[in-house]
């Protein structure tokens, strides 16, 4: 079962337990797959520039989700000390909530660029194509735009405006690059 579902607080009604409503993980997977598919299918691509439109739509969806997730999951957490703390929260806590694992590798150049590497990205674990290799990486790229948006939304709501891009060279590994706005 996926804990990606709701953590509904009925605190006002004075119930002692928070009821956790869970959603089946396969339903979540199917929804995400279909979401990317629908957006790619229904976005009119007339020129090369329009392929950005799909990225923008999925990224905006992720942005809204990221903002709300971070509001909910930092509720009981003490205040963040600095930007690195925020990025570490994303790598550890947010990734654990969404993908049940932490980011495998975090690199920074201490000048506002962070590189997050996930060696077995959960949403890629069951993806493959006949040709394999670079072809499957290329086909899987739209599925990584939604998590980009989630990371961007999470950072933005915690007071860190940024640009997030992601790339994958071979499934199931993927890399997210965060560039902080100056």
């Amino acid at each position, binding site marked *: 079962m996926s804990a990606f579902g709701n953590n509904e*607080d009925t*605190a*006002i009604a004075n119930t002692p337990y928070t009821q956790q409503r869970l959603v089946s993980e396969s339903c979540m997977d199917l929804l995400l797959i279909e979401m990317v598919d629908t957006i790619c299918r229904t976005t009119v691509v007339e020129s090369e520039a329009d392929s950005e439109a799909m990225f923008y739509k999925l990224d905006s969806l992720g942005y*809204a989700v990221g*903002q*709300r997730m*971070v*509001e*909910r999951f*930092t*509720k009981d*957490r*003490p*205040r*963040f*000390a600095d930007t690195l703390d925020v990025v570490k929260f994303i790598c550890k806590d947010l990734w654990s909530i969404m993908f049940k694992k932490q980011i495998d590798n975090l690199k920074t150049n201490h000048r506002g660029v962070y590189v997050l590497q996930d060696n077995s990205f959960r949403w890629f674990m069951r993806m493959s194509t006949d040709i394999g290799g670079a072809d499957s990486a290329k086909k899987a790229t739209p599925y990584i735009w939604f998590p980009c948006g989630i990371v961007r939304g999470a950072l933005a*709501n*915690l*007071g860190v405006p940024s640009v997030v891009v992601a790339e994958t060279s071979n499934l199931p590994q993927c890399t997210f690059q965060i560039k902080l706005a100056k």
Partner: protein
Amino acid sequence: MSNEINCIALIGKQNNPLYLKNFSNTHPDLKYHYIAHTSIDVIEERVASGPKNLDLYLGLLYAMEDLAVYGYMTNTRVKFVAVVSVTEGIIRDAEMKTIFKKIHSAYLSQICNPFYNLDSQQSIDSKAFSRAIEAIGANTNTKTTMDI
């Protein structure tokens, strides 16, 4: 005697007014808007000055005349202000913390509405949220008036 919540105010992350609910009839709404506005400065001071103070609850911000103002800031820079009328009882931190936790829960339920734009700086205009805040106020006010 009793301590009553006179007002609950929410201030957004760009210091825009999000919501204000006046429970008392001793002071007009405008006075509480003014109080919430001055609280912004005090909150920012408290947060900037104390790297050791990493708690979301900020405690008593300031007191004026017969009112005490308590503050709370979330990790996403949304500020909650509760104005309490000071009579003779002692206001415990634990009580104020539970009140702020309830406000935070109500706020969370409100922002999970996908049609609410978090970046828009508009004030919250939702019946469910208003009801939740009124319930918090009513709950605290009836509870305290019974502790004689």
